[in-house]
């Protein structure tokens, strides 16, 4: 019976090739989107699952609010891990990562390679995380100083073999012995290192509870409730942190600290939540965002629904032409359930063919998804044990869902009525179909408006006044390698044609890992008068090269000998201090020595106009600029040349001469700036792809509907023409109803789109506004697309000779 159903089903599909093609292609696109997004979502959800202890590992995060600055950190202080393990039996183990500057120069032969995926870690690393050894014993690998564990591909890269045990590697001029080689860390890990050095080699002022620089993970014993465990942090604060705070700040109690508007808090972040839920600084990798996982899943579902709706609409639209078939079948003795079976077989057959189309489409569009998502996904990931049943079941689910309404609808015709030509419900009074078309366009309009807003915001980011000029700035990384030659390097580069100014500095206004220092208005560190801010070391030419603007006072100048104890503040810092005229006032810090009470004073000589040095998602926090030419790691040059390539070549030649062993690495500041918004740019691209797809599939449905409608109404159109209807009368007759639906969809979608996009924009402290023209534009666009889709078929129907269609009767 079922075989027979399918045989007839396939024959029917073949008989109505045009209709089947529209349906299969639409559904295929919908399913392809579904497959791709499933791949993406499954990958996002798989992060860190490779760890056997995945449910017991937690990262200790710190929340700080101090002196006008708010910090949400993914790190805590160096003694935190050990303290927790010592005081609380629930803590089975802890491990810390220290990434300092974030990169090391590793010697290979006679040259150096800049390696970015490096970290120092405690020897307990392998008790917490599952990082299997290829060679050596990870249990003891990092026990000694000057030891390093590397990954298999790194071993191959440096030594040509994976077993590199006992070999020595030189990183930042320090020799390390390779004690273990581990398998490459899976790509779906929130950290991804090639080198893990011993923690003993970190040069650090240990023991300071108030200095947060270590990613700290604890392994809780089986059955420990981590939410309950978090309550212990109050105790930790009172027992260890407060005594230290008293020592070099004037704090008597946590109460007093919080009353002054400050905050210190620790939380546990479950390992499996880090990738999608954590947005702190400094993260060890580029994290995903659970919101986008939700959004993409919803989008996949909606696109699939839009495709299913086409299917339902076209099937019911075809009911008129199939009514007679149903009538005859019933007269010949077919029961209703046979008919339902027949129609479901048809829709399932179509869904199965669509699935094959979808797999083909997905295969060819996967590289595109990989490109915009920055992942390397493979279609065979879908063949995993968990996903395969879903994949096989999907066409059946879709077939039955999409086919059930037409099946029940069509099989319900009464044979006598149908054969007498009555009972055909015709085209007009089908509210369900209208509702479904409205829904399709409703979703399409949401996608379109969403895309417009996202692009506006991206554009806003590109063009907003940042307070500095990011264009045409060439950044040379790792300039610290030049040592004492750095000044002469700068001067040599300034001699190149097209280079107008240059600066040596430790930081640039593009995101990087930085820490705050506490400053105070008075010569004592009192939390009431504290100012927590970043302090950047710059030189005389920094402000000029970056195109920043000094609004008060002056820039550093060689004419003033005492500028080494001078400081320039940004407007935010000046506001927090609250002086009418901050110029000449002093601020203090104990930066020089973390454990001593000795204060250093700085005189404010200028205020620089606020510039965005973090993402536009954040406020501009206080910042100080100090003159200090020794810590410079970045050399930046304002360049203006028609031939950037040759200019960079000249710079590289000079670098090669002065630091031949060190890799030459450069970037342009606008690229570095764009990097900060990679996630948004990805979302932008994904959004535009989905909008186009959604609109396309919805239009495919409209096209199918109008084709059938014109077919069904041939006779009516003929009569109307005989009675005097003009071509435009007929076109408007056919398209009017659809346009009405599209307009209704617009009216329904606008408020929701406005609400959703406002929510999205709330993420950005600095953002564009949503203009009414966007809604009008989306409306006009959808109406135009609908007119175009419907118009062609309507026109064809309208110019047909009425004599022919009337003869059909």
């Amino acid at each position, binding site marked *: 019976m079922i075989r027979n159903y399918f045989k007839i089903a396939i024959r029917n599909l073949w008989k109505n090739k045009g209709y089947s093609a529209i349906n299969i292609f639409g559904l295929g696109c919908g399913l392809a989107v579904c497959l791709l997004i499933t791949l993406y979502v499954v990958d996002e959800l798989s992060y860190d699952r490779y760890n056997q202890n995945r449910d017991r590992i937690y990262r200790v995060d710190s929340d700080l609010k101090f002196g006008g600055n708010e910090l949400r950190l993914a790190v805590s202080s160096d003694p935190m891990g050990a303290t927790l393990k010592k005081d609380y039996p629930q803590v089975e183990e802890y491990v810390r990562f220290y990434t300092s500057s974030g990169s090391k120069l590793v010697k290979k032969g006679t040259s150096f390679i800049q390696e970015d995926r490096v970290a120092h870690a405690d020897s307990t690393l392998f008790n917490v995380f599952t990082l299997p050894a290829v060679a050596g014993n990870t249990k003891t690998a990092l026990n000694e100083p000057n030891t390093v564990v590397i990954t298999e591909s790194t071993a191959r890269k440096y030594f040509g073999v994976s077993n590199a045990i006992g070999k020595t590697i030189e990183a930042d001029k320090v020799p390390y012995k390779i004690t273990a080689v581990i398998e490459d860390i899976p790509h779906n890990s929130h950290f991804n290192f090639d080198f893990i050095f011993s923690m003993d080699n970190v040069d650090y002022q240990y023991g300071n509870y108030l200095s947060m620089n270590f990613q700290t993970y604890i392994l809780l014993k089986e059955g420990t409730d981590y939410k309950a465990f978090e309550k212990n942090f109050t105790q930790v604060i009172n027992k260890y942190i407060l005594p230290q705070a008293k020592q070099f700040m004037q704090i008597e109690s946590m109460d007093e600290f919080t009353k002054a508007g400050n905050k210190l808090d620790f939380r546990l972040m479950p390992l499996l939540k880090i990738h999608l839920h954590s947005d702190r600084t400094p993260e060890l990798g580029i994290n995903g965002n659970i919101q986008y996982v939700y959004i993409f899943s919803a989008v996949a579902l909606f696109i699939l629904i839009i495709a299913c709706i086409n299917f339902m609409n076209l099937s019911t639209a075809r009911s008129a032409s199939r009514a007679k078939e149903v009538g005859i079948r019933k007269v010949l003795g077919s029961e209703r359930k046979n008919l339902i079976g027949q129609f479901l077989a048809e829709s399932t057959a179509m869904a199965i063919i669509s699935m094959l189309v979808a797999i083909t489409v997905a295969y060819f569009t996967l590289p595109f998804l990989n490109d915009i998502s920055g992942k390397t996904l493979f279609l065979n990931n879908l063949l995993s044990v968990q996903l395969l049943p879903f994949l096989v079941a999907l066409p059946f689910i879709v077939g039955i869902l999409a086919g059930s309404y037409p099946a029940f609808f069509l099989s319900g015709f009464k044979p006598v009525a149908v054969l007498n030509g009555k009972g055909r419900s015709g085209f007009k009074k089908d509210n369900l179909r209208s509702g479904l078309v409205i829904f399709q366009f409703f979703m399409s309009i949401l996608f379109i408006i969403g895309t417009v807003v996202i692009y506006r915001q991206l554009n806003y980011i590109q063009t907003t006044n940042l307070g500095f000029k990011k264009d045409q700035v060439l950044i040379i990384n790792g300039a610290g390698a030049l040592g004492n030659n750095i000044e002469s390097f700068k001067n040599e580069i300034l001699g190149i044609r097209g280079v107008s100014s240059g600066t040596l500095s430790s930081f640039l206004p593009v995101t990087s890992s930085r820490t705050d220092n506490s400053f105070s208005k008075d010569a004592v560190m009192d939390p009431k008068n504290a100012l927590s801010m970043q302090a950047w070391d710059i030189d005389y030419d920094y402000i000029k090269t970056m195109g920043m603007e000094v609004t008060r006072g002056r820039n550093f100048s060689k004419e003033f000998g005492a500028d080494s104890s001078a400081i320039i503040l940004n407007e935010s810092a000046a506001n927090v201090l609250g002086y009418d005229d901050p110029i000449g006032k002093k601020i203090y810090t104990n930066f020089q020595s973390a454990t001593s009470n000795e204060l250093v004073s700085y005189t404010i000589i200028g205020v620089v106009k606020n510039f965005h040095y973090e993402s536009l998602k954040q406020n501009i926090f206080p910042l100080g600029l100090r003159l200090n030419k020794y810590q410079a790691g970045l050399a930046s040059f304002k360049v203006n040349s028609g031939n950037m390539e040759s200019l960079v070549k000249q710079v590289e030649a000079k670098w090669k001469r002065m630091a031949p062993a060190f890799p030459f690495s450069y970037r342009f500041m606008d690229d570095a700036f764009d990097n900060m918004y990679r996630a948004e740019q990805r979302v932008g691209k994904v959004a535009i792809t989905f909008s186009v797809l959604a609109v396309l599939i919805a239009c495919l449905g409209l096209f199918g509907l109008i084709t059938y409608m014109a077919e069904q109404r041939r006779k009516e159109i003929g*009569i109307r023409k*005989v009675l005097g209807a003009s071509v435009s009368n007929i076109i408007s007759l056919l398209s009017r109803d659809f346009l009405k639906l599209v307009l209704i969809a617009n009216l329904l979608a606008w408020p929701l789109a406005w609400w959703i996009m406002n929510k999205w924009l709330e993420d950005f402290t600095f953002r564009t506004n949503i203009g009414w023209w966007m809604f009008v534009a989306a409306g006009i666009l959808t109406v135009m697309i609908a007119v175009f889709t419907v118009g062609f078929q309507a026109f064809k129907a309208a110019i047909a000779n009425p004599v022919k269609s*009337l003869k059909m009767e």
Partner: protein
Amino acid sequence: MIKITDLEKIYRTEDIETVALNKLSFEVKEGEFVAIMGPSGCGKSTLLNILGLLDDPDGGSFVFNNEEIAHYSESKRAQIRKRNIGFVFQSFNLIDELTVFENVELPLIYLNMKASERKEKVEEVLKKMQVMHRRNHYPQQLSGGQQQRVAVARAVVNNPKLILADEPTGNLDSSNGNEVMQLLTDLNEQGTTIIMVTHSEHDARYSHRIIRLLDGQMVLENSLI
């Protein structure tokens, strides 16, 4: 009112050429009631379609109201058609989705008439055709005879000078058929020109004159008055 000379219509399909009208000439005066008869396939419907400006001839001349219109464009013909000509078909050709009232109203809508004026006219003609009580029914809910009366009502609602009827009684029993023929006769008496295709000698007797066709040519023209 109508004068055709050497009118030709040739249907070309891939391999066959059918001469549906072969140099046909005749004249119809205003106020006449003409029946066209002939065996199946002789070209009656083809002729009627051309006279109704629904189709164009392949040769010859067609003068309508002293205007040569054989080569007029479709839109120009449509303009003339909607003001001057009403159609009645064998299969009624009512629109199933519209009520009786709406069906009859259609020609007036395409003449851009005001709604109040339309209502008045439609009700008047529905009363005349005795289907006023069915004004809110759909065509499927009417008998064949009622449907044809609605079709006639629709054909005359805009007071056309010419009514073309293609086997108007073909689908009706004799009593309903006679009723429709009586309606046409009444209209003719009020001054409307009528050209009717029929297979029935009985119906043809209502007309003033019979034109007999064979293979697209006129074989006989007999006047009944």
